[in-house]
């Protein structure tokens, strides 16, 4: 154990209910901005969202079409692998159940792909039944580009690197394809409650 820095507390909440804080996490009221690359600025009239791969037919929505879909408010706790957790964060988004409605597929896996080239992989089951959204608003405002706007994937039950910023689509497939960070040490699945941060955890 390194030497204790006398009087240092850090800027974290110490009053959070422990049953909401996964192991090894610290609660913050901030919303730290982390990014693997420059913030993209895709004009909305050039933006689209697609569902592709092993599906019966490509699904595609322009921004207007996407925003015309039914959406819902979402209040969730989010957990970043860099150890901060934020409780009761408020979003608005379109459920993946809505987007996947009527999609015929035998695929078990998904790769989310994004402006700027970021990718992340998940089992298809982790996106369905109310577990995931494409979020376009945070805290009552349109989602800021530095937080992933115009739209990001939101999958709060997994570490937040899976909630890919600047998402542009999902590619469904039969095989699991590790994404940007999963290829380089981060856990393939990423359950914060099992502290699955890195390979082999």
């Amino acid at each position: 154990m390194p030497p204790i820095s006398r009087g240092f507390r850090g800027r974290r909440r110490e009053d959070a209910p422990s049953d909401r804080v996964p192991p090894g996490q610290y609660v913050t009221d901030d919303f730290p901005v982390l990014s693997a690359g420059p913030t993209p600025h895709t004009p909305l009239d050039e933006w689209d969202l697609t569902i592709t791969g092993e599906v019966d037919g490509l699904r595609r929505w322009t921004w207007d079409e996407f925003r015309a879909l039914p959406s819902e408010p979402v209040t969730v706790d989010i957990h970043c692998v860099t150890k901060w957790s934020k409780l009761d964060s408020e979003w608005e988004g379109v459920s993946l159940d809505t987007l996947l409605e009527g999609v015929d597929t035998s695929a078990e896996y998904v790769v989310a792909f994004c402006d700027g080239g970021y990718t992340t992989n998940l089992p298809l089951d982790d996106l369905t039944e109310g577990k995931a959204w494409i979020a376009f608003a945070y805290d009552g405002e349109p989602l800021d580009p530095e937080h992933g706007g115009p739209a990001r994937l939101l999958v709060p039950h997994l570490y937040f690197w899976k909630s890919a910023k600047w998402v542009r689509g999902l590619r469904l497939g039969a095989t699991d394809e590790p994404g940007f960070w999963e290829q380089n040490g981060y856990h393939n699945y990423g359950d914060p409650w099992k502290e699955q941060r890195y390979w082999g955890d």
Partner: protein
Amino acid sequence: MDALMLDGNAAAGLLHEIFGSEMTTAVGTCDGCGAAGEVGAVRLYRGAGLAFRCPHCDNVLMKIVVGGERVWVDFRGLRALQLNS
């Protein structure tokens, strides 16, 4: 331009700890565009891990993830790395 962007030099301590020597003056050649420059001068982004990007074409040169006692480094975006003695 991203206000968050740093220089490779900001990771000098971590790079030294991983590689055992000063790395910011090593010259890397980008596998995307062929540009060469000092590691200290490339663009550094802090996401879940560190991503070092080419200042000319934004190609990811290196990724570093530190997980407790383990460190993972991806060099695929570097065609070559020249270390000076």
